[in-house]
């Protein structure tokens, strides 16, 4: 009798282990099938060469620029750049699907001003809906006579 009870208990334990394994596998399959969870582990390298021209300004220190980015995305670009003595504050829009902003170092040498720093992706849509929070580097120049801007935006972003 005692042996029979032990046998039943072992069977129950084995069944429980088998069932929990099946549940875990099902959960794992569900995770892989979920496009959101699947996408969050993927990244993409981005490298854009941007050239933009002045389209407007707000006061003497905030410039609005428009142009194109050529590279991974080749998107139309809008850049707002606020200039201080040693820093610039940049907002960058790549089409309607990627936007970022950041503070960069800024300095002047003759007719050229230089900036470099990091952009934090603040908005993404479509392919880039999981990109907010990613960081890209930005480095470029601003011509102090024409305000023509050119820069390189590069890095790895989450998809």
């Amino acid at each position, binding site marked *: 009798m005692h042996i029979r009870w032990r046998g039943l208990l072992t069977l129950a334990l084995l069944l429980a282990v088998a069932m929990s394994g099946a549940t875990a596998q099902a959960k794992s399959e569900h995770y892989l099938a979920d496009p959101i969870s699947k996408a969050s582990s993927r990244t993409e390298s981005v490298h854009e060469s941007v050239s933009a021209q002045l389209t407007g*300004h707000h*006061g*003497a*220190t905030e*410039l609005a620029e428009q142009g194109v980015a050529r590279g991974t995305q080749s998107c139309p670009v809008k850049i707002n750049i606020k*200039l*201080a*003595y*040693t*820093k*610039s504050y940049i907002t960058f829009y790549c089409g309607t699907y990627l936007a970022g902003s950041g503070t960069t*170092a*800024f*300095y*002047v*040498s*003759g*007719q050229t*001003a*230089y900036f470099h720093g990091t952009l934090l992706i603040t908005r993404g849509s479509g392919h880039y809906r999981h990109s907010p929070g990613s960081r890209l580097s930005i480095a470029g120049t*601003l011509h*102090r*006579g024409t*305000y023509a801007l050119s820069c390189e935006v590069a890095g790895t972003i989450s998809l």
Partner: protein
Amino acid sequence: MKIATIATRLGILAGLLWIALASPVDAAPAVKLKVGFSPDKPGSSTTVSVGFTIQTQAGVVPPPLTEVEFQLPAGMGLGTTDLGERICTVSILELQGVFGCPSNSYMGLGEAIVEVPFGPEIFAESVSLAILMAPAIEEHTTVLFLAYGVAPVAAEIIFHGELLDATGPYGAVLHTMIPLTPTLPGAPDAAVVRMRSTLGPKGVTYYRTSKGERIPFHPSGMVIPKMCPPGGYPFAATFKFLDGSTASAKSAVPCKTAQLRRVRQRK
């Protein structure tokens, strides 16, 4: 002569020497700072004028100035001016003097009074200043200062000023290390007692070439922010002297009455 007498005399001599050397240190200099905008109209391009006077006891020359940190108000900058659209270098200044520099590298002009104690007399010399755009150093906007005087001492000194980050109500600090200026044999280095300088288009003429013709123009200066902070546009400076003493001074360009009214209304 007894050893004790010699020791006493040496002691007295050392004491006198100590008093003589210590007196300029004890008379810690005070600095008066004066700043202004010309024109003084918010939202317009301006020339910033800066002046300071180093005050000591009458008849005492201050110790030579070795370092100045000049803080500029936030909301301004050089990015959208064409001030210093060309650069001048130390080697050009050394080889050809100020006339070797491009006209379009001038960012300001000024003058200073330096004093040299020589025996019981104090010689004063008027020195001209030129401020020029220089190549950036370690990714900092850099200006070159050229100070040149003729008599009684013919001297020319060149030094850099770098724009660095600042905190509080200031947008940047212009950090300048000033080299010592040797004077007459046996006399101490020259000491700056007064300086007046501009940063902006006033008194500066640039040239552009159009259809083979050289056309003069005035560059645009830094723009005065439209919003005036309470207490005015703040400036401050810290001065360090050869003897290790320091002095600080603050000043502000007052807000226009209309601006103050606007700020109060917004509150």
